[in-house]
């Protein structure tokens, strides 16, 4: 890596340029249906199980925290409301982001990086095929789709985990938990979370593809690219999450 002061700027510039390229190439026909389905299936298969396994304890931790807090305040009837709100608004997009970047993004980056150093990408360009159109766009769209679906999965599993811990382990009442379900959360929270997941999926896939396609220096270069893609994606995702949350609170009126 070059240590020149313009290096970082140039990197972000070309990352952004590739993002624009992807956007411009999305409507280009013929759409790579096969690649899209294969990639969606692939990303889903590497993320579903870890996501489910991560979201159970995530929901549980939130339930535990809120459970003891509400008991101290004597507001047990609100524990359901608070835990749903936390899972739906924050936990599920974040868990989705971590898993999409950590499991899906790394797999995409390693795959494209290996192809790059084996000169497969060059060969493809020479054969007159745009790798952005053929490889990157299907991956980005597939990751976005899977991210949205995963977000739904995390919400369900997380809320179920919270319910289990609250009701079974902390002796909460099922009725109170379910009845307070919608006192704080609203439908627009779900839409906002899904929108976040969609954006996170796009960012994770674009960064992973960018890093993969610019890998150089043999097998070690691929390792470095994967490493950097995870770090960059995480940083971008958390910043994006903050911005989207802030905007959401500004434009959607809150309950309660």
């Amino acid at each position, binding site marked *: 890596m070059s240590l020149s002061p313009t290096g970082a700027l140039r990197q972000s510039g070309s990352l952004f340029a590739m993002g624009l390229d992807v956007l411009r190439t999305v409507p280009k026909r013929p759409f790579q249906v096969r690649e899209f389905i294969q990639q969606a299936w692939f990303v889903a298969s590497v993320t579903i199980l870890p996501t489910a396994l991560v979201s159970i304890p995530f929901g549980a931790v939130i339930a535990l925290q809120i459970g003891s807090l509400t008991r101290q305040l004597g507001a047990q009837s609100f524990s359901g409301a608070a835990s749903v709100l936390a899972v739906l608004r924050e936990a599920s997009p974040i868990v989705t982001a971590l898993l999409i970047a950590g499991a899906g993004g790394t797999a995409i980056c390693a795959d494209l990086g*290996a192809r790059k150093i*084996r*000169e*497969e990408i*060059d060969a493809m*360009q*020479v054969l*007159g095929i*745009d790798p952005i159109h053929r490889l990157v766009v299907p991956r980005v769209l597939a990751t976005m789709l899977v991210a949205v679906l995963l977000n739904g999965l995390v919400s369900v599993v997380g809320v179920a985990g919270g319910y289990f811990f609250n009701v079974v382990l902390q002796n909460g009442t099922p009725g109170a938990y379910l009845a307070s379900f919608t006192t704080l959360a609203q439908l627009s929270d779900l839409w906002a979370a899904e929108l976040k997941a969609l954006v996170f999926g796009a960012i994770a896939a674009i960064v992973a593809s960018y890093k993969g396609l610019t890998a150089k220096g043999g097998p070690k270069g691929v390792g470095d690219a994967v490493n950097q893609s995870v770090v960059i994606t995480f940083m971008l995702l958390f910043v994006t999450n903050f911005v989207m949350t802030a905007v959401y609170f500004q434009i959607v009126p809150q309950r309660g």
Partner: protein
Amino acid sequence: MGVEICVEGLTKSFGRQVIWQDVSLTLPAGEVSVMLGPSGTGKSVFLKTLVGLLRPERGSIRIAGQDITTLREHELYEVRKLFGVLFQDGALFGSMNLYDNIAFPLREHTRKPEGEIRRIVLEKMDMVGLIGAEDKLPGEISGGMRKRAGLARALVLDPEIILFDEPDSGLDPVRVAYLNQLIVDLNAQIDATFLIVTHDIASARQVPDNIGLLFRRELVMFGPREQLLTSEEPVVRQFLGGRMQGPIGMAEEKDAAQVEQELAQLGEAADAAVPDVLELTPRLLPTEGIERPPRWVEIADREALRRLRASVRGRAGDA
């Protein structure tokens, strides 16, 4: 008929490091040219610049009336359809078997029915001698087979220009000989413009019409095979002779004084050996049975004449 490539004043650098500068040459249509050079002189970079994978800092590359250094990305994809490129390790798609690899360009670029694709793919696989290996994955076959498969893939779209990136690297001498024969046969059959980038002197001596030599960030010489093989230029003689004495050193280049000294030492002794080194290696001709286009008929006639002359001279020497 192949397409002429006209390169003028081409300069390429990575950061502050100049790879080569002011390279001007013309690859004549339909002819076989070889680009020689010590390792690390940017031969592969030159090749990638010709197909527009890398952008040069200065200069122009005219192919079929277009300067590809000024083309936009989507226009480049059109021009690239004229090219077939054989990459160093074949650059096959690791997830597809050989058949799908070779069919890939046809499936992407044409709307041919699967039956016709099958016919074309099998024809090209037959050309490179890979019949029976259709279902193998690139990871399961030898380097030589990967190269031949890469060549078959480069051929399916009937390119006007074929570029070979070190076709002989990592192959044993027998396979190199077969590959050279294949290249010559292909040239006689499809009449495209060939550029071979290599540092294998033996191939460079017998395969091409033209030879170029890249050294010290410059194109030292480019011209017909005979001109290079009989050249007095020290770099050319050292490289084609494959000896240590001369301007090319192990690391990069030697200082002038040392070169002078070495060449002086070599002096008379080397000159005695020179006729041997400089003698024109006979050209590799297309296999008997392949129909030769006029260009190759002419080359074959010239070769026959030269052989006749050499044998006459040999007999005169004996007497």
